């Protein structure tokens, strides 16, 4: 119980700080939402009238206070540029981005676990060396570049999918997942490479432990020792890494969405920032921060499960 309260209050404080920083960022950067809406037809009086209408002329603390109050009450405000409730606007985009991140996460596990085990089992053999080299290469390629290569290769050369031809989950669930596979792999590859490197080293260190030698000398199957004992003990640093990687992967999803033309949060976030559409940006930033924080709490819990000595 104490744990839950502690984590929850930490979460709320962090979210408050994030939202204040996001609010302040918009005060500092140039550009005015009213002027952005009016474009080149803006006259001073038109801008002032619109600012008044949008409530932008009120002092900052008052605006922030009001925003927090509404947000807590479930009202995310109205988008300046679309005149529709922010909740409606981003409601159906959140699942897209989160699904993409989840798919990427699955691919990381799918790639890294077997390969790491294989590399450890055949340490310094051909397969280990091959993967070490491949790893080094993959790690240094950013996801958006992999995305561009995928689009050209699988989209234009092999014609396996239509670049930009996103299928919504309402239209076809299988089509939706099929379309997200390539973007998911593009995000996963560099992270999977890092995970393999970390996982392999952690497992190798564990393999040098006395208990492994003992287990093996007792005639246990080396595969069995690896999977049943070493894996469990060597996984802790990987869990920490993956917990941190989630934040990075959401960020990468936002970039990859542009490359594949996926209408997730990313495009909305980017265009809203450039249009100075604060309500939308605030909501997205706070929601992403909340997701990351919750994942971190889950990682802490998992950590404790894996190693009972750890206090969280």
């Amino acid at each position, binding site marked *: 119980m104490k744990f839950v309260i502690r984590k929850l209050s930490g979460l709320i404080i962090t979210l408050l700080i994030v939202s204040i920083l996001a609010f302040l960022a918009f005060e500092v950067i*140039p*550009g*005015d939402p009213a*002027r*952005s*809406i*009016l*474009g*080149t*037809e*803006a*006259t*001073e*009086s*038109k*801008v*002032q*009238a619109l600012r008044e209408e949008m409530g932008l002329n009120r002092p900052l603390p008052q605006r922030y206070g009001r925003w927090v109050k509404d947000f807590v009450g479930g009202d995310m405000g109205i*988008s300046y*540029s*679309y*005149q*529709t409730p922010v909740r409606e*606007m981003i409601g159906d985009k959140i699942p897209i981005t989160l699904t993409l991140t989840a798919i990427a996460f699955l691919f990381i596990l799918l790639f890294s676990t077997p390969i790491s085990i294989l590399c450890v089992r055949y340490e310094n053999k051909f397969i280990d060396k091959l993967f070490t080299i491949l790893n080094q290469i993959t790690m240094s390629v950013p996801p958006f570049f992999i995305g561009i290569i995928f*689009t*050209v290769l699988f*989209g*234009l050369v092999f014609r396996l999918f*239509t*670049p*930009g*031809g996103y299928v919504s989950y309402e239209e076809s669930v299988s089509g939706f997942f099929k379309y997200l596979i390539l973007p998911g792999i593009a995000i996963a590859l560099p992270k999977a490479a890092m995970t393999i490197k970390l996982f392999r080293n952690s497992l190798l260190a564990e393999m040098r432990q006395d208990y492994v030698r003992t287990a093996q000398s007792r005639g246990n199957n080396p595969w069995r020792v690896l999977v049943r004992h070493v894996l469990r003990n060597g996984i802790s640093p990987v869990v920490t890494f993956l917990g941190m990687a989630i934040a990075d992967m959401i960020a990468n999803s936002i970039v990859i969405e*542009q*490359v594949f*033309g996926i*209408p997730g949060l990313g*495009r*909305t976030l*980017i*265009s809203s920032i*450039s*249009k*100075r559409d604060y309500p939308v940006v605030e909501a997205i930033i706070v929601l992403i921060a909340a997701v990351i924080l919750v994942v971190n709490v889950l990682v802490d819990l998992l950590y404790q499960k894996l190693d009972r000595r750890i206090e969280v």
Partner: protein
Amino acid sequence: MRRRVAQTILVLTVAAAIALGGCSGDKKAAPSTTENKLSGNPVEGGSIKVGISQDLDSLDPHKAVAAGTKEVLFNIYEGLVKPDKSGNLVEAVASSYEISDDARVYTFTLRDGVKFHNGNGVTVEDVKYSIDRCADTSNGDPLVSAYSIIDSVNILDDKTVEIRLKEPNTEFLAYMTTAIIPKDYDALETAPVGTGPFKFVSRSPQENVILEKNEDYWGEKAHLDKVEFKIVADADMLVTNLKGGSIDMAMRLTSGQAAELKSGFHIEEGTMNLVQALYLNNAVKPLDDEKVRKALSYAINPNEIMDIVSDGKGVRIGTSMYPGLKKYYDDEYASYYEQDYDKAKKLLKEAGYPDGFDLEITVSSADQPHVDTAQVIAEELKNIGVNVKIKPIEWESWLEDVYANHHYQSTVVGVDAANLSARAMLERFTTGNSGNFINFSDAEYDKIFKEAISATDEAKQTELYKQLEEILIDKAANVYIQDLANLVAVSDKYDGYVFYPLYVQDMSTIYMIE
């Protein structure tokens, strides 16, 4: 048949160009020609996906300001009159109009049987409501600035509306393209209703806008059943999406992008109908000196810019008027300042800058043609000792710093016209005008402008507008460059693309071919 005519014209133009080539090295406005090898029969129906670079800023036709929005809304809404492809204003919701001799009273008769997309007939009340809404000053300025001269909108009978102006204005018809919307309809932002050839179906922010054919359209009905405008924000993705088939058409490609689309597409070439220039802040040193501005004009060669930036495509212009507004455009103006570094240096010396000066060019970083142009200018100006620093900024910052607050030295941008009138291009340079971001101020200009807008004789008025254009050249208000080429890629499955002398995209002329 049409194609044969086009070919004949092409042959004649080429012949003429060769014949004239000897006497003039200038870039003349070449008629848009396309290597259109399409064959096949037009079929009715079908759908098309059009890539657009940014989402619409508003679905309310009276509140939308972005050119990229208006070109889409052109298909949904209509005014009492609307522009046609040759730059004339033709009757739309009105079937006829009459302008009083003193150009103070405009009388419109409604066309019979024009229906809104919701099925209701258009009434004189709707017309009055739409115009009053744009003329309303309760929020400061009216939505359409020119409507500040409207005295009253009166319903004469159930077919006739008259608009009385406070002062004579012969060009007011150009402003009557304002969309007619249903009276007291307040869901324009989410469910727009107009009278155009296409009806609004749905919109998904940052994703798409979908329209369908209006079967009850009063005029020539559209060929396609469905049009999807798909937002492709990333310029690099545009070509990939075209090639992959997720969009069938895209406008305003660069010549590099167009060259990548070798098969399956035809490239239509027109112009963007805007005035690209190195706009100079006439109020800051050293640009407040006419001699300095002239020196810059002599140092910059628009032909070279076009050759480098767009493979020579585009039309060179010399003043704030683009060729699409034929009546007011004179291609003599383009060659007023021919590149001459010696003359430029001499002028700088006279102005007191024998060693040149530092010049900052602010440019919106997302507009590649403008950024590229600024780079060529920077190289050219080196020759007269002017040190250019290019400052790329976001469009939103550009609107604020450059356009609204005039905190800049010079900028490369394209300025277009909101409607088919010379006033739309020239009014901004009058002293104190809110759109006068270059701080140009000339008593003579202001005086002639006043005369021009109140002139009731059309020939006289055209003459006065041309005088204004000449003042802008003579004072070297800006360094004028070109009307940018507009390259449109259309999938070979479609034909019928038509260019307008305005920033609009008429989807009703496009049809599928078998």
